[in-house]
């Protein structure tokens, strides 16, 4: 579904990603862990070109993102994204947040969009909040709306950029629950997270990143119980 070859990313002289190779299979749930500043979020943002890549190849669903002929907007319709800060549209009601892109990009009718989006709100347990504005919701509810908004485009895969890091601890669970459900339905997911429990339970594979490189990757169980690299050990010791 996604193939990354020798991905480099520089901000000015600062090289944030130093050659990343990675393959993500359909229906796979890949969790990325690592210290802050290790380039996890930048890596994720390269996968839908929110960050233009400096060199290397990112191929999403057969589209080479570095190819000028690739219609990046088309690719993005297939790759949903959830942000740390939710980034809901504050001037629109919850239901309108969901409906905007399907209407304007997929060009489906009002009625169809409303039906589809109500169903999604139901799925994340927020059907009763459809007519409210985002700021009337709790952080956990907002993030669930944001997940539903991304799903409204019926994407083939989802990117999660630290989806629970801005939440109060007691609200983390409800968001992870929705993500877990999504994973069980077979969604391809790429999750940058600090929730080791989630990575261990839901992830099919865990990547450990440090200083712009993937230091270690593998089965979550094995990674958490028997890490191979010293840096992984050190990191896991600090946080577990």
């Amino acid at each position: 579904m996604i193939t990354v070859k020798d991905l480099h990313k520089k901000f000015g002289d600062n090289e944030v990603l130093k050659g990343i190779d990675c393959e993500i299979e359909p229906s796979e749930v890949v969790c990325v862990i690592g210290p802050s500043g290790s380039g996890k979020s930048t890596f994720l943002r390269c996968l839908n070109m929110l960050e233009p890549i400096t060199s290397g190849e990112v191929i999403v669903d057969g589209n080479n993102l570095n190819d000028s002929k690739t219609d990046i907007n088309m690719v993005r319709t297939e790759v949903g994204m959830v942000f740390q800060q939710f980034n809901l549209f504050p001037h629109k009601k919850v239901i309108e947040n969901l409906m905007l892109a399907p209407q304007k990009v997929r060009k489906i009718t009002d009625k169809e969009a409303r039906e589809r989006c109500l169903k999604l709100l139901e799925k994340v347990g927020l059907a009763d909040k459809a007519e409210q504005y985002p700021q009337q919701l709790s952080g956990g509810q907002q993030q669930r709306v944001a997940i539903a908004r991304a799903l409204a485009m019926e994407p083939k895969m989802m990117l999660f950029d630290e989806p629970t890091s801005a939440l109060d601890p007691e609200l983390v669970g409800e968001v992870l629950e929705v993500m877990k459900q999504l994973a069980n339905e077979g969604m391809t997911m790429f999750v940058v997270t600090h929730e080791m429990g989630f990575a261990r339970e839901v992830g099919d594979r865990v990547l450990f990143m440090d200083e712009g490189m993937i230091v270690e990757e593998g089965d979550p169980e094995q990674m958490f119980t028997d890490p191979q690299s010293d840096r992984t050990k050190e990191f896991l010791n600090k946080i577990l």
Partner: protein
Amino acid sequence: MIGRFNWAGVIDFLPQLFTGLYYTLLISVVGLVIGFILGGFFGLGRIAQNRALRSISIVFIETLRGTPVLVQAIWIYYALPLIIQFELGSVTAGITVISLNSGAYIAEIVRGAVQSIDKGQMEAGRSLGLNHGQAMRYIIWPQAFKRMIPPLGNQFIISIKDTSLLSVILVPELIFQGRLIAANHFNAVEIYTTVAVFYLAITLSLSFVLQRTERRLDI
């Protein structure tokens, strides 16, 4: 003191003052509508990806913000016709001045408001597959517009007052009429006071409308 003056006599001159008021309002309204369009264009132009558009916008904004309205009026009315070989009426010239001048300031208001919207909003829109223009139109602009209203109101009031400078290019607006009357009838105190009250009436009404709009939109 006040009793020395013939305040009741002002009534005779009201029709002429209303003619002046008409021109003041005409130039303000038309000028600000065009100014808003120009401001929207150059404000977005200044932060556009296209380098040429950005440069043009900066030149427009800096030139018009950096020269006095009075100089702009005199230049457009007396100098420009010699260059383009085309006589401009004073009202046309007046509308042009207010449009261009307010356009430059409004451009900065637009730019500031658009840039004040959190970057995550554009990213969220783009991540859903909206193109830049769509994200601007449906996500950024509505939020930015709300933030523009208070500074826009301020600019409207400034521009309305600036129209008084157009009397030097013979626009028959309020203070122009006032000066005509006062010169012929030696009633400077009464007429100029009335003129000032007229301006105040316009700007206070506008302030009132703006305050209500701000309250209603919860800004």
